[in-house]
Every structure is written in structure tokens, then in C-alpha cells.
């Protein structure tokens, strides 16, 4: 009863175009950044290593290696500051949360098992 009230008042803030990306996907998060009175788009590329929560509180974590240092950013899934989430590549994951990516260094840090979206021609 009480949860249904909360669902109803947060319903209009949920974005319906945020359901397509999942853990393991390589994404480019287009973020609206406000500078003074201007807004510009900042892109944060990386791998989605976690997606958790539900409803308005749902969040996802994007990890990338920026100049040799691992960087993670947690975004609210339904944030109005996110312009769009582009999917670069999909992958096959055996885990719900890819926290093991944090232990990887070098070339392996960006490698995920890619899902073959089409059959390779021999």
C-alpha cells in the first residue's frame, strides 16, 4: 500500500529509454554538464560493471581506464542529467556484478568476452 504510493509519485520521473543496457556492455554515457549558463555534453565511455537498485533509486557503475588509472562513476539510471546511453558493444558475462574487473591490470582491464552480434564470414 505505502510502496504503491511511492511508486506512483516517482513514476513520472522514470525514463523509459534506460532499460536496454546491461552489465558487461561497453557504453558511452552522454552527460549534460552545466557551465555558467551554458550546458554542454560530456561523454564518459567505459564498461558497465554493476547495475543495482530498482525504481527511481536504480543506479549503474561505469568503469574505464583513464591515463593508466582505473576510474569508476556511479550514475542514477533515471537521472535527467544523462542525455543518452550509447551501447558500443555487448558481452557475455557470468556474473551479475563485474567487480573482478578491478583486479585486472594492463590489456586485460578492458577485455570482456564479446557477444558476437553477427556470424563471421569465413
Amino acid at each position, binding site marked *: 500500500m*505505502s510502496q504503491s*504510493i*511511492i511508486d506512483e509519485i*516517482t513514476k513520472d520521473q522514470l525514463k523509459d529509454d534506460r532499460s536496454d543496457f546491461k552489465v558487461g556492455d561497453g557504453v558511452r554515457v552522454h552527460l*549534460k554538464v552545466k557551465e555558467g549558463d551554458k550546458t554542454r555534453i560530456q561523454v564518459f565511455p567505459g564498461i558497465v560493471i554493476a547495475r543495482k537498485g530498482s*525504481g*527511481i*533509486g536504480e543506479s549503474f557503475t561505469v568503469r574505464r581506464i583513464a591515463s593508466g588509472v582505473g576510474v569508476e562513476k556511479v550514475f542514477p539510471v533515471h*537521472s*535527467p542529467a544523462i542525455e543518452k546511453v550509447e551501447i558500443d558493444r555487448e558481452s557475455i558475462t557470468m556474473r551479475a556484478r563485474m567487480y573482478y574487473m578491478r583486479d585486472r591490470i594492463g590489456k586485460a582491464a578492458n577485455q570482456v568476452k564479446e557477444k558476437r552480434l553477427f556470424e563471421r564470414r569465413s
Partner: protein
Amino acid sequence: MNIALLGKKIGMSQVFDEDNRLVPVTVIEAGPCPVVQIKSADTDGYDAIQLGYGAQKAHRLSKAELGHVNKAKVEPVSNLQEFRTSGDTELNVGDVLTVDRFEAGQKIDIIGTSKGRGFQGVVKRYGFAGGPASHGSMFHRRGGSYGMCQWPGHVIKGKKMPGHMGDVQRTVQNLEVVKVIADKNLILIKGSVPGSKGGLVTVRTAVKQKRAHA
């Protein structure tokens, strides 16, 4: 004008504000509260208004309570609460107060009953450090010394000791109203509020306002 409403805590959630930040909010269903009685200094010795809240079946009220609400010509209510006023009020008996008397951005106070924790030790109840856990300590979660010896010969009053924790009235001051949804009688308040879901809370305009800097 200072007003107060009775309500029910629905639960917590989050909303995005205009700067796209996620704000934690508590959802409270407040009102509608009918004015059941107006007390005045002449007849009662003090000035107050009595508000009702919550629908109740008529047969669950005692005859005295039923007569009281019938006199005010309001529907039977489950809760009655008085709020002091400063004398003349523009409200009349039978008027119904709703959340649209509050507006977003306003500061309010919330009065509620905190969650009961039962009988608790001093570590949980007062945040005492306790003793070492190991190395044969034998002094784990105790509160230390209770005081001196033959003088003063008794434990000083107010000494923090184990006992019942929670389930007491608590007031949180100067919380911000994030949003008012008048058609559903809901009010969204930034931050947390004492009590469990479904608990009775009082929403009133803040009594201590922060002074504006000159």
C-alpha cells in the same frame, strides 16, 4: 501563518531536483484535518485548536468521543490533537486543513515517535566505546565506572546506564518541503523523519527560523 497538520509516514524515496541532483525525501500523508474544537482563554484558560485526523468507524468511538465529533459536525476521527494558538484565529469549527497550506521550499518541523529498540546496553544506547574484545579482557560492552566511592556515596543522577531505548517523542526541526501533492494529501520532505512507516507524525511550520544574514 503557523499551521500544523497530523499525518502518517508513508516511507522514503528519492526525487530529482531542478539541478538534476537526487534528493532523499520522506513521503508523508498529511491531513485532511478537520477542526474539532476551538479553545479560548475565556472558557478554557488557554488558546488552542483541536484537530482530528484519520477516518474511523463510528461504532469504534466511545459515546463521549462520538458526541464530541457530532457537536463539531465532523466525520468520526481516530486521532485528536491540540495545538496552541496565539488567541484569535480565523479558523472555525468544522473547517478542514489540508496540505495545500504548505508550499515547496518552506521550512517545517516534524514531531514523531522514534522506533522502539527495547532494552539496550550503553554501547548502542549512548555510543560508549566499550572495552577490548580480546586478550583476556573480560570487559566487553560495559559502561565503565558508575561513580566515586564513599563520597558522594550514591550514583550521580542522570548517569548513563543500560535501559529502554527509542519509542519516545522526537522533533526534527527545519526540514525543507520538497514538493506538495495536494490532490493526494501528500507532502515530500527532505531528509529522514522519526518513526516507522505508518507512524503518526505532526507536521508544523518551523518555530525556529534561521536569521537572514545582513
